[in-house]
């Protein structure tokens, strides 16, 4: 196995199949036309390419270039690694050919870099395998993450007929102008999505505030004071993490039905923070523990009360942690589905997630549902991308709240 003339063709063959599938899927999703990876032929072509790349070690050796160009052009004949359907536009075919040739050349040159033709050392062999796996990993993960979101956005821009005609055709007709966003305008006009957006927003913000109000003193107490039951308390906070929401939702539903709190934003605002307080408390106490006590003691010596110490010293020092916690809590409240679904029936009081659930019916076209999903996703994504540093920290510190 550890011979350059074996490793090279094997990796080349597998790699070409991966690349051919990727390009075929990408082109299908982009144009809706027929592209099909040909596994058998791909393996043969890839083996040839791998052998060539191992045999000619110069990075841009003419033989390497020739083989790559040949690979690309072979797609035209129907005997190449990618089969291009008959009714494909010239540009799409052209792009496919170029993509196969260029991507294959660059990536194969990288994977089979410095791989001798004959005997390989263990290091050379494993490095090549790792480079192969890395390439595959990037393609694989990017594909599985991007495809669903791509489908979500593109479906929301299509019309029902176009969708049923060719579910693969996601090409967007830009000449329609603003009519492209008709699903969105309909959602905001006929389905009250503006209200839902606002409700979700203020419920989430209120949840963040109430959560901080409750958890900051609690976290401080757990982090700084010695008292009986401290350990038991931090453990039970963790235990509360582990109680499934549906188990709590059932009695809450009953209690709210009896007291008339069901179907009211007040009820939602009462319940949401409690689901997030344990997480926030746990995250914050970890951070507070890391702060030096000397600064606080200095404050105490100067005559500040404990609460003033928290307000004037601890909180300003822990602003980054507060930002992380707030973002994380905001995300939980914004994404919350189960309680909103069970407790809200009145369409005028829906949160965004509850509103999107309402769209999941056979009478409402798919693109509306997807447009609703986009509306629910966009704000949280914008927050996330803008404040990724805090968010990542928050997620890591928030342990593994699901």
């Amino acid at each position: 196995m550890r011979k350059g003339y074996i490793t090279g063709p094997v990796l080349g063959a597998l790699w070409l199949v991966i690349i051919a599938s990727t390009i075929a899927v990408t082109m299908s999703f982009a144009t809706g036309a027929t592209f099909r990876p040909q596994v058998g032929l791909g393996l043969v072509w890839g083996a040839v390419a791998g052998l060539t790349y191992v045999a000619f070690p110069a990075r841009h050796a003419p033989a390497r270039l020739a083989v790559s160009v040949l690979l690309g052009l072979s797609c035209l004949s129907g005997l190449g690694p990618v089969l291009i359907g008959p009714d494909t536009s010239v540009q799409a075919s052209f792009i496919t050919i170029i993509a196969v040739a260029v991507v294959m050349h660059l990536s194969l040159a990288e994977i089979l870099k410095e791989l001798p033709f004959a005997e390989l050392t263990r290091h050379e062999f494993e490095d090549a395998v790792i480079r192969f796996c890395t390439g595959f990993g990037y393609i694989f993960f990017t594909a599985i993450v991007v495809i669903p979101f791509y489908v979500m956005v593109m479906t929301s821009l299509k019309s029902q007929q176009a969708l049923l005609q060719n579910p693969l055709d996601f090409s967007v007709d830009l000449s329609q102008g603003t009519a492209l966003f008709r699903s969105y305008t309909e959602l905001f006009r006929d389905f009250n999505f503006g209200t839902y957006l606002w409700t979700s927003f203020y419920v989430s913000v209120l949840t963040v505030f109430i959560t901080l109000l409750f958890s900051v003193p609690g976290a401080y107490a757990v982090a700084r004071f010695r008292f009986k039951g401290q350990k038991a308390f931090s453990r039970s906070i963790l235990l509360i993490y582990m109680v499934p929401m549906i188990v709590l939702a059932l009695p809450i539903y009953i209690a709210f039905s009896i007291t008339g709190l069901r179907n009211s934003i007040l009820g939602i605002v009462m319940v949401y923070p409690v689901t997030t307080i344990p997480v926030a408390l746990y995250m914050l106490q970890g951070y507070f523990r890391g702060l030096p006590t000397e600064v606080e003691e200095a404050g105490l010596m100067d005559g500040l009360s404990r609460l003033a110490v928290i307000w004037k010293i601890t909180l300003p020092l822990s602003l980054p942690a507060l930002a992380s916690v707030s973002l994380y809590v905001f995300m939980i409240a914004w994404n919350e589905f189960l309680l909103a679904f069970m407790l809200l029936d009145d369409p005028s009081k829906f949160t965004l997630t509850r509103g999107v659930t309402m769209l999941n019916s056979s009478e409402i076209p798919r693109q509306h549902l997807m447009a609703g999903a986009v509306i629910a996703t966009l704000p949280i994504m914008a927050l996330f991308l803008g404040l990724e540093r805090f968010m990542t920290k928050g997620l890591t510190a928030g342990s593994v709240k699901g």
Partner: protein
Amino acid sequence: MTSTTPPTGTGALAKREARLAWTLLAPTVISVSLVVILPLLAIFWISFKPFTLSDLRPPAPVVRESLRGSGDDLRIEYRLRNSSQEIAIDGVTLSDVLPDGVVAGEVAAPCVLDGQELFCDFGTLEGGQRERIRIPVAIDGDPESFEDVVETSEPRVTGSGPNVLTNLDFSLENYARVFDGSEFWGVLWVTLFYTVFGTVGALVMGLFAALLLNKSFKGQGFIRGLYLFPYVAPVIAVAFTWVTLFDPFSGSANALLIQMGLTNAPINFFGERPLALIMVTVFEIWRYFPLSFLFILARMQSIDSSMYEAADMDGASPFQKFWLLSIPQLLGILSVLFLLRFIWTFNKFDDIFLLTGGNAGTRTLTVNVYEQAFAISNIGAGAAVAVVILLCLIAFSFVFFRYISREEGL
């Protein structure tokens, strides 16, 4: 007399500290016990009760008051009925104050009139029973304007039926129903499959993704952010996207598979056994691999690099370094993640509920709670399933604290 021994017990300062601590914790403790502890106790209570969705509205007397007739033939009418068709209500009474300017005529049993105060005692109102009381009245003034006055003065009614929630009748019927037949074992098997494969899959994928990103290059931050998308996006958005993507009629995934010649007929991914279970597990892996990835990556970046340099000097190959250095270093975080994710996957409800609604052999214990309580509208049975879940969780958390406490020093 002053003692010369050192003070024992807690001193005043320590006591004050503890008091302050509990004061600061009080809001959290109170709110959490109201919304978490109390419902948990309620679940146990309800699970022993024959409680259905319709019992949520206990039977109560309903009354409507109106001014009828015209001219000399004016009368106030009270129409009373039992809101329930089956259950009787005890101690039903009605009392009302007639507005000034209204002079009542003769009042028939079971009512008595004392001045302007009307009081009727109906005793027991059978299920579905209706009562009508007519009181002839004379009005000095315009009947039109009195209509509003009469109808806005709310009569008070008392009387209550038996409340299933608060009485002391208990039965094991719910548990018998839950454990009855092969259904329960099917649900348990589905839960275990989903939990074990979902957890392990997400861990392995997370490890793979972390290995990819454990080197610094341009755009690393961007890719890391991108790979977190499935976890950060709202569950309804991604779940409905998957449903759309894998729809048998208009789904792109099926169109792609057919076009590539991998299948001839569309596959109903979320509607067939056992494919639906595999699909929801794949969704779980897809949605939660970012979390494992984030934790494993954080741990990887904190591993001391001198160890790898030493291994390089000794001529270790990349695979050897991975198996003999990285994996042992990551074992701690991997086991913590495994246990926590295991519990969380076990608890997961939203994902399956949105993807399949628990159909096509994907009903896990948590989905079963919802099914029993709302689809079959037997809240008691749902509560019994919830109790089973809680018992499992107590067992898990026992394991958790035995092993994790040591790992993470909690």
